């Protein structure tokens, strides 16, 4: 196969790495520091508070010459989305900090909601960086911030897109 990638999520003080898969429902925003989808129901976000920050990396394997020009955006919002604001960090970061539910000092930018048109996730923390063998993107950092207007109850899943160039 050509290049493919897997999503990793990171937790705790020691950059614990968990492979969470390639597609489908990979994780949920919750109040606790854990990977994947389980446990969010017993650790819901209280309306008016923030989710735990989410640290992700796309982990590439396979046969390729070069991977670059990584782009990330949210294709569809939660529904209902009243009182829910998703923040992230433009271009990602090479530095891991233990996730927190305090208002993120890392994820302070508005998440793109359409194709950004150019690279917005770096490799190795470097603009226009690329990999020529197995390797990962910089950390993609997300935090869901809520207001008391956020409704309790079911929401639809938000859908995210990751795009890259491979030669």
């Amino acid at each position, binding site marked *: 196969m050509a290049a493919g990638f897997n999503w990793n999520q990171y937790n705790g003080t020691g950059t614990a790495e968990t492979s969470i898969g390639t597609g489908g429902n990979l994780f949920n925003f919750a109040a606790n520091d854990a990977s994947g989808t389980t446990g969010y129901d017993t650790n819901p976000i209280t309306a008016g508070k923030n989710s735990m920050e989410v640290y992700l990396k796309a982990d590439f394997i396979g046969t390729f010459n070069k991977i670059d*020009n990584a782009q990330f955006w949210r294709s569809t919002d939660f529904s209902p989305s009243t009182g829910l604001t998703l923040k992230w960090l433009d271009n990602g970061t090479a530095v891991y900090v233990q996730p927190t539910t305090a208002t993120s000092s890392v994820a302070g930018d508005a998440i793109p909601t359409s194709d950004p048109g150019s690279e917005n996730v770096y490799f190795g923390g470097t603009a226009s960086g690329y990999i020529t063998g197995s390797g990962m993107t910089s950390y993609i950092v997300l935090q869901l911030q809520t207001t008391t207007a956020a409704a309790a109850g079911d929401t639809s899943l938000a859908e995210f897109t990751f795009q890259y160039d491979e030669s």
Partner: protein
Amino acid sequence: MNVNKQIDNFLKIRRQSLLDLEKAVEGLYAIGVRFFTPSPDGVPDISAAQSLLPRYEKTLEDFEWKAIYTDKTELDQYGEKQSHFGDIDMSKLDKIQYISNFEIDTQNPEKRLVVTLNADGSFDFWNCGDQKLKDELSKPVEGKKKFILFRRKRETFTAGVGVNLGKANITPTGEKLTYARYYLGYECGKKKIIVCLYPNGQMAIDNDAKEGQSKKVSD
């Protein structure tokens, strides 16, 4: 509470949702978006409206490239060994082809789409490309060329959220949507030509698809 009214209302929502779902799926298929649902044995179950060839299930590529050298030997992307763009010997390259892993309805014996970039800078299109594209790209271009070949791929995942006692509406499947475009072209001095091959068989010039130089990183 008028329960019959409630039932009618939900029936209307349900009916409209099914119509919207069908319309959205048809639209995604027409663009060339692929749906993957992993099966228990790990083999992806690929849903597609297009006439994908069995080879697609092996390589998961809408188009595969082939380098043809001046000595008539060839290098296939998925030959005995898998190759990438960096494996192509540019010093003896005669042409690069992208060949589709789907067929179109045509009287031609070759029903796949084939786009050829010749070493002289001219393009040939088989079963694809409109006349304007052919007219614009059929002529040779003099000068040393730097060839461009890459795939732009997008994939999706979902994330839910639980607020207060609420819970995310988790879908039971690991469905993944992918969409890939294939680019072929060259730079020659200040001139740049990049053709984009879409997975629904459409072609277009997209000279802005690749800009600037990138830097290798260790991670």
